[in-house]
């Protein structure tokens, strides 16, 4: 009987993994949506699998089998969803203010390398997660019990830290960048019409004459005329830097540069994005939506798909990149660095899974604050380990804290009796689900590399703009089917909000205020 049960768990885990592989490659499709669909089909599935009771299996074990499929699907989804995220939605490299590490590799023709690294990160997180189970049980769970009354303050503190840690610097000061050979000493009349410093406008090509008021450094000085002063910064580093009080004529382009307040301006924009997304979250939190296919729908699906999916795709559509031919060779992996990256990704995931509203996106930012190596390769490993570790630890949190932290866990909680595990032998259901995680992780690792290789081979043959347009339409259709016209509108507003951080150059994770702010307000 034990062998039969084990065999069925492995079989259902494989089935769920294949489903996760299929859903993972659909861009913008979240595992929570899958959980909603599967949750709606479970009564029918239970009836269909009723024949298993003839083999001496209890109905509760059959429901555990369905949960095994659900969990393995969610784990496989975290492996595979990196594939479309790598190959789709990349912005034009030169103009983009922020570029995701996977997109950076794609634009170098190394998209496949990114996929392999993501598989390494995710599988590392699965292995690390298993090793971390005792620590999670005996340290994280008691810590949660102590910190539970202060969760609102912790969430508030995390929000402040995320905003404060924003690195983006917003240029606001006018600067003249001389054209090559555009600086010379003033000696009598000049051929071009000179402009006053006060009248300079952004993007102008100008000729200005003035006295060097202050030398800031090599090829950087303030030029003053009777109407004002302006910074001149020579980028070509040609010729000597004029001495103070020398009269010079500068021909150059007026641009913006960073100043003393640029960092604070970046933080201000981050706070603005957080608040805007938070208001958006508060408005849609209780907004009723109607599904046209009778499936349960939540306004959060179109909102998150709009902010993080459609916005990236629209940005990529507006600034279409030239995707080079992708290299299909095995990447060189720095295993020791990758080990630390997995560790740095998984530990914050184990901690943040305690907190409602803190998503893997926030966890990634926290993990990156503590990472030493910020090369795109190691960032990918960290990012993917966060996603998979978060999924695994949310399963553990369900059984240790009795708190469902993801949509998948909420569905699971409604399907099997969840008995709290506070030490000793784990509950039977949890044992089966952990086996599913291991099976799903192993299959998911190889499936990710296989699918990534196929994607990298065939991807450049597909017309990029049509593909992106088709995916946006597909996401729109999904939003319409799940949440109706109102959901479609929410997705549009979400996409507009998602475009703000991308076009401003601040981190997209600030838009996660869509979840954090309403939760903080509910807890307050």
């Amino acid at each position: 009987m034990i062998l039969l049960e084990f065999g069925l768990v492995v079989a259902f885990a494989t089935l769920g993994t294949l489903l996760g592989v299929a859903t993972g490659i659909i861009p913008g499709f979240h595992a929570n949506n899958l959980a909603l669909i599967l949750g709606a089909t479970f009564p029918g599935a239970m009836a269909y699998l009723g024949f298993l009771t003839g083999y001496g299996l209890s109905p509760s074990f059959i429901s555990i089998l369905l949960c095994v499929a659900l969990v393995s699907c969610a784990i496989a989804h975290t492996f595979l969803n990196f594939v479309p995220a790598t190959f789709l939605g990349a912005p034009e490299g030169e103009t983009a203010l922020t570029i995701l590490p996977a997109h950076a590799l794609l634009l170098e023709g190394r998209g496949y390398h990114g996929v392999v690294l993501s598989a390494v990160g995710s599988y590392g997180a699965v292995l690390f997660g298993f090793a971390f189970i005792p620590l999670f049980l005996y340290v994280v769970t008691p810590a949660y019990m102590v910190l539970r009354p202060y969760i609102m303050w912790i969430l508030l503190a995390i929000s402040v830290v995320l905003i404060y840690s924003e690195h983006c610097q917003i240029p606001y000061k006018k600067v003249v960048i001389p054209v090559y050979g555009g600086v010379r000493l003033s000696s009598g009349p000049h051929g071009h019409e000179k402009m006053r410093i006060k009248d300079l406008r952004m993007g102008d090509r100008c000729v200005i004459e003035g006295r060097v008021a202050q030398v800031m450094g090599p090829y950087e000085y303030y030029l003053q005329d009777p109407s004002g002063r302006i910074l001149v910064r020579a980028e070509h580093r040609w010729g000597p830097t004029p001495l103070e009080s020398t009269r010079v004529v500068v021909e150059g382009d007026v641009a913006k540069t960073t100043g003393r307040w640029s960092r604070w301006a970046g933080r201000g924009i981050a706070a603005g994005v957080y608040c805007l997304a938070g208001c958006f979250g508060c408005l849609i939190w209780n907004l009723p939506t109607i599904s046209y296919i009778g499936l349960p729908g939540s306004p959060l699906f179109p909102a998150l798909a709009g902010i993080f999916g459609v916005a990236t795709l629209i940005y990529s559509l507006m600034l279409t990149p030239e995707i080079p031919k992708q290299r299909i060779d095995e990447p060189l992996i720095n295993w020791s660095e990758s080990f630390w990256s997995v560790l740095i990704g998984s530990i914050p995931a184990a901690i943040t899974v305690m907190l409602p509203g803190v998503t893997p996106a926030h966890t990634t930012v926290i993990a990156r604050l503590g990472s030493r190596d910020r090369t795109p390769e190691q960032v990918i490993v960290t990012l993917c380990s966060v996603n998979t570790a978060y999924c695994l630890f949310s399963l553990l949190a369900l059984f240790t804290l009795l708190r469902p932290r993801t949509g998948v866990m909420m569905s699971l909680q409604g399907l099997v009796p969840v008995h709290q595990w506070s030490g000793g032998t784990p509950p039977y259901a949890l044992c089966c689900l952990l086996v599913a995680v291991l099976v799903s992780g192993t299959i998911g690792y190889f499936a990710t590399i296989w699918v990534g290789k196929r994607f990298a081979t065939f991807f450049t043959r597909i017309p990029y703009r049509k593909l992106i347009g088709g995916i946006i339409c597909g996401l729109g259709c999904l939003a319409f089917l799940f949440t109706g016209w109102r959901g479609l509108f929410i997705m549009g507003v979400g996409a507009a909000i998602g475009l703000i951080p991308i076009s401003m150059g601040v981190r997209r994770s600030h838009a996660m205020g869509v979840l954090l702010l309403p939760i903080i307000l509910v807890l307050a």
Partner: protein
Amino acid sequence: MNLRNIRILSIAVALIGLTVLYGISLSAKTPLVALSDVPQYQGTYVTAHGMVETVYTTGKRTSLTLYDKGTRMEVVTWNPVESTAVGDWISVTGRVGTYRGVPQIVVDEMLSIEHIPHATPHITIADVSGHHGEYVSVEGRIVSLVMTGRNTVIHIKDDRRSIPVFVKGLPSDQDQAITRGDRVRIAGKVVQYRRNYEIKPLSWECITVLEKGEGGFTMDELALYPELYKGKEITIVGHPQHRNGRDYLTSNGLSLLLIDHQLPETQGTVTLHGRFDYDPALFAYGLWATDQKA
């Protein structure tokens, strides 16, 4: 399109969109659905009305069972619900989910639970038989209050009919100062007990005293439970009446036979004290009065 235009466009669309969403959220209230239809709204927010049948609290989690028109629905909330008691009619707004395959409403905001006054249909005692199995509200005066072990049976009577009310627990356990003669409104479920209809409130909180009575022992109680008072000393108030050569004490349409006692000719009420017992010669219960006050 350059970055500057993308920025301006995205900010403009976001602000306009949020304004429109604000308008939608003001106008679009969650649909009000009957408890029986709640499972059809899986995953969405709904508002439903019902009467609180049970309240169960574990830690910060409170489960309420709502009842309306034959349907029960579990409501789960993580907010304090001290003001909600069994028997209250409330309106809840929450997301419809399932727990172990059973639909439930998950309320995540405190404001989502509102009390609805007098939502139980109010009927007369004569109409009770037409509402079998439903929660109703009836009004009447308490004519008897009898404790049976750990429970209490109250008889209430309106102008025409009386009906028993079965309440779990004893009145002394509660803060309710209910006494005989009180005019009360009782909300409870109409059930049948030994082929007779009775009202079964969920708790003592479902009994509201509308007007305080004078208290004391009533003739109705004696008529309902003669064996309970057989052989005991009682004090009773009524109007003296003489008919068929015998004296009676009448009150509230009921008559008590007086044995071996002559009543004075008076139109007012008298108070008699004596032993209540069965007279085998007359095949009737009667009062052997020993003391009399005009």
